[in-house]
C-alpha cells in the first residue's frame, strides 16, 4: 500500500482523470464516460487497497485486479502509470500501432494486467477461478481478488453463471465492484434491460451486498474492509457512480459512452479538472 490520505487520494484521482482526458483526446477514439466515473474507485484500489508492487508485477503474494468491462481500461492504464508500472509518457500511445496499451486490455502485452477483456461478461468468472485457487487449492487466505464489472454488462448470462458459481463455493476472497452508472451504449440500463432489484439479485445468489457512493473514497475503503471481514460469502459492492464524473458536459450523458473528447472539449475538461470546477485556480491559468 502507498499510504496516501483520503485527500491525497482525491488529488490522485483528479490526476488520473486528467490523464484519461489527455490520452483519449490524443488517441482520437475510446470511451470517456465510464473511465471518468471509475477514477475514484480505481485510484483507491491502486493507491490504497491492493497489495501490489509496480516494480514486481508478478509478486507472489500480490492481490489480483481484473477489469471485466475492458473498454474502461484507460482509467486502469492511467492509475497504473501514476502508480509507477510504466512511464506516464506511454499513456500517449494508447490505441496506437505497436503500443502495449491496447484499446482493450491484453494481459500478454503489459506487465501488471491480470486478464484480457473487452467482450463483456467474463471478468467475474475469471476472478472466481483465481479466488477458488487461493481458497481451496493454494490455501492462501491473505490475498484478494478484485473485479470491476460494468452494470450494462450484467445483461450477459456468463455473469450470472459466475454469480452462481462463486455463491456455491463461498468464495470469500472475491470482491466484485459493479460500476452502477446506469448507462449502456443504447441508453439507460433500466430502459435497455432492467437490472433492478440488483441488490436482491446478488443477495439471492448468496453474495454479501453493499451499496456505496463510488465517488466517496472513505466509503470505498470502508466497504472493502467490510467485504474482507465477511466470511463464507463472496462480496459485491454496488458502486454508484456518475458517468463522466467531474467533467460537467459529460456527466450523466450516455452519448459520451464510446467517444473521446476533441481538442476543444479536452481543453475545457482539463480546465474544469485543474480548477476543481472553479474551486481552485489552475496551475496554468
Amino acid at each position, binding site marked *: 500500500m502507498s499510504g496516501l490520505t483520503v485527500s491525497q487520494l482525491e488529488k490522485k484521482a483528479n490526476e488520473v482523470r486528467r490523464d484519461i482526458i489527455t490520452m483519449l483526446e490524443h488517441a482520437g477514439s475510446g470511451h470517456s464516460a465510464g473511465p471518468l466515473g471509475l477514477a475514484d474507485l480505481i485510484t483507491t484500489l491502486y493507491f490504497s487497497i491492493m497489495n501490489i508492487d509496480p516494480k514486481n508485477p508478478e509478486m507472489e503474494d500480490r492481490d*489480483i485486479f481484473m477489469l471485466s468491462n475492458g473498454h474502461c481500461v484507460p482509467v486502469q492504464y492511467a492509475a497504473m502509470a501514476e502508480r509507477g508500472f510504466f512511464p506516464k509518457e506511454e499513456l500517449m500511445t494508447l490505441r496506437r500501432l505497436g503500443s502495449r496499451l491496447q484499446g482493450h486490455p*491484453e*494481459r*500478454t502485452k503489459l506487465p501488471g494486467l*491480470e*486478464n*484480457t*477483456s*473487452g*467482450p463483456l*461478461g*467474463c471478468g467475474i*468468472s*475469471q*476472478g*472466481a*477461478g*483465481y*479466488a*477458488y*485457487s*487461493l481458497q*481451496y*487449492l*493454494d490455501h492462501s487466505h491473505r490475498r484478494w481478488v478484485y473485479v470491476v464489472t460494468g452494470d450494462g454488462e450484467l445483461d450477459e*448470462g*456468463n455473469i450470472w*453463471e*459466475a454469480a*452462481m*458459481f462463486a455463491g*456455491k463455493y463461498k468464495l470469500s476472497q472475491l470482491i466484485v465492484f459493479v460500476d452502477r452508472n446506469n448507462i449502456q451504449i443504447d441508453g439507460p440500463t433500466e430502459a435497455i434491460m432492467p437490472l433492478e432489484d440488483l441488490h436482491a439479485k446478488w443477495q439471492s445468489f448468496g453474495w454479501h451486498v453493499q451499496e456505496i457512493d463510488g465517488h466517496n473514497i472513505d466509503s470505498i475503503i470502508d466497504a472493502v474492509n467490510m467485504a474482507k471481514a465477511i466470511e463464507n460469502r463472496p462480496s459485491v459492492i454496488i458502486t454508484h457512480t456518475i458517468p463522466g464524473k467531474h467533467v460537467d458536459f459529460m456527466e450523466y450523458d450516455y452519448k459520451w459512452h464510446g467517444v473521446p473528447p476533441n481538442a476543444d472539449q479536452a481543453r475545457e475538461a482539463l480546465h474544469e479538472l485543474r480548477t476543481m470546477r472553479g474551486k481552485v485556480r489552475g496551475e496554468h491559468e
Partner: protein
Amino acid sequence: MVAYQLNEKIFSDTPDVEPTRAGFGRGLKLAGESNPNIVGLCADLTESVQMHLFANALPDRFIQVGIAEQNLVTVGAGLARAGKIPFIASYAAFSPGRNWEQIKTTTALNQMPVKIIGAHSGVTVGPDGATHQMLEDIALMRVMPNMVVICPGDSVEAEKATQAIVGVDSACYLRLAREKTPIFSTVDSPFEVGRAYVLHEGKDVTIVSTGILTPYALRAVTILKKAGIDAEVIHCPTIKPLDKATILKSLKKTGRIVTCEDAQAAGGLGGAVAELLGDEFPAPLLRIGMPDRYGESGAPLELIAHFGFDDKGIAEKTKNFVNARPQYKPGF
C-alpha cells in the same frame, strides 16, 4: 523409418474396441496423480466424459461448475492465471460450440494453458441427432491462434494425448467421441503433439485421416488392394500444428490425397490439407467428411456407414477419385 506398431487385430473381424473418451479418463487420472497443478472442471457430464475417474481419485482438485459452459472456460482461465493446469470437459456441441468467444478471449488471446475437452463429437453420438453431433469444432478451433487441436484415433492414443498436452504451454482442444471404435494403436505406438504417422505405405494415393475414422481408413487399404490400388495411410491426430512434412513427403510419392474426418469436410483436416496443397503442392484432393449438411438420428455405426465414413465408404470414394484424377507431377 521404424514401422508404426499396429494392433494386429485391427484387420480382423473382431478388432478391440473402446471409446476414445475412456482413454481420456484414464489419462487424466494418471496425469493428475503425477502433477499437482492439474485441476478438472466439468459441466454436469462428469461420468459421461469419463472425468469421474479423476474426480473420484482426486476429489480436492475436481470442480463441478454445473451446466454453464461459458463459466466453465472462464473459471478455467482464472485458475490457469493462478498457476493451475485446468482440464475443462463437456460435450463438443457445447464447449467449444457455445463458448467459442470466451475460449478465444480468455485462453487463446490471453495465452492461458487451459485444456478444452470436447467429448461426444461427430456423428457417433448417434440417436441424439444433429443438435448433439458436433461437426464444426475442428474448423472452429483450428482458426484460432495459440490453439493446439488434437483428435485422437483410438482410446489408447487418447490416453497418451491427454498426458502429452499437460506439457503443452498453450490452450489445447482435445476432441473425443462417445461410441466404442476400433483400436489400431498399441501402448508402444508413438504419439507426439504435432506429429502425423504413416500407418501403411503405398504409392497410388495418400489417405490422411484423423480421429476415429483412422481405423476405417486402414481397413479400406485391403479393399482398395483388391481393386488394384496401393494406398498409403497417414494418421494425423494433431490437426494444428499440422505435420506438413510427413504429408508432403507422402504426397510427393503418390501425387493424390484423400482426407477423412468425422466432421465437416470444410474447414477441418480437409481444409487444413487443402490450404497446404494450395500453398505448396497442388495435387488432386478428395475431402471425406460431412458435405455441408447436418447429421441426423440413427445408430452410431449405422451413421458411420450411412455417411460413407466406414471402410467400404472410404474405399469406394477413394477408388472413384483415383480413377477420375491423375497423379500430380510437379513442374508440369
